[in-house]
């Protein structure tokens, strides 16, 4: 296993991060209307990908049931630690039962 690939990956990953920070600093005013909405777009997509993605397909499994339980906890304004525990607990429970 060579270090070259690891260095390329780390350099590339950092380059993306740095480009974002530089762009954010330079064009803060112009980007403001976009960046105020960007988290809503990216995080809702991330939730879908993390809750249902399984490689290149979408699946409905114990994980999604657990996340749904987590959503209920969020709706009841539970703190994040409770939200996460509920989601994990329900997922694990469904896996044991199923």
């Amino acid at each position: 296993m060579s270090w070259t690939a690891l260095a390329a990956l780390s350099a590339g990953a950092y380059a993306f991060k740095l480009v974002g920070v530089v762009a954010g600093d330079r064009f803060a005013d112009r980007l403001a209307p976009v960046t105020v909405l960007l988290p809503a777009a990216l995080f809702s997509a991330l939730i879908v990908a993390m809750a249902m993605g399984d490689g290149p397909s979408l699946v409905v499994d114990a994980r999604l049931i657990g996340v749904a339980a987590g959503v209920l906890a969020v709706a009841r304004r539970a703190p994040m630690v409770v939200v996460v525990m509920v989601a994990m607990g329900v997922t694990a429970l469904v896996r044991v039962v199923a």
Partner: protein
Amino acid sequence: MSLLLQPHRRDGLVLAVACGLIGLPYGVLADSAGLTMAQAVALSVFTFAGSSQFAYVSVISGGGNPATAVSGALLLAARNALYGPVVTPVLRGGLFRRAVAAQFLTDETTAMASAQDEPNTAHDAFWFTGLAIMSLWVAGTVAGVLLGASLEDPGAWGLDAAFPAAFVALLVPHVVTRAGKVTALIGAVIALVAVPTTPAGVPILLAALAVGPGMAVAARRRSL
């Protein structure tokens, strides 16, 4: 200890613990893919992007070539470029500190920073979450490499549901406005369509397009 009890630090710590736990299977996979301890840890420190690291070691352990593995992993890392402009308003200090802060850009730090109302809290949320995640992610990596295949599959603990559930909580402050709701809804629909049809990482990038309709809604509200 009382500092730890501030809600944003408590939430950051919850995310960091989850990252530490997910570091275990990453370490196991890195070890089985033939990475040394130093290499597995170097990726966790210098790449510091969980989904990219998982993608990389998965391809390598499946016998794929490093170039394919790197390009697939970088596609997943590309979304961090979109997180920069979200986080820069809360960053402080000069060029060097901002360049260091860039390394700590992740889904979690961006979500934690952007979920806070108050600039000081947002700044603290970014750094506290970033440093806590870095520490526990590296610790999880080391433990995973050392313990290897003797570890139980964390899927059995429901850990895979922890992150999407945490992000639902972190999404809430962004969907207070009508424009935010519309943006989030379209972002989710884009992901549903794109996950099965595009390479990993691309769905999140495409979801950024949902900002367009969201801005239109915001503009119409203003003009009324």
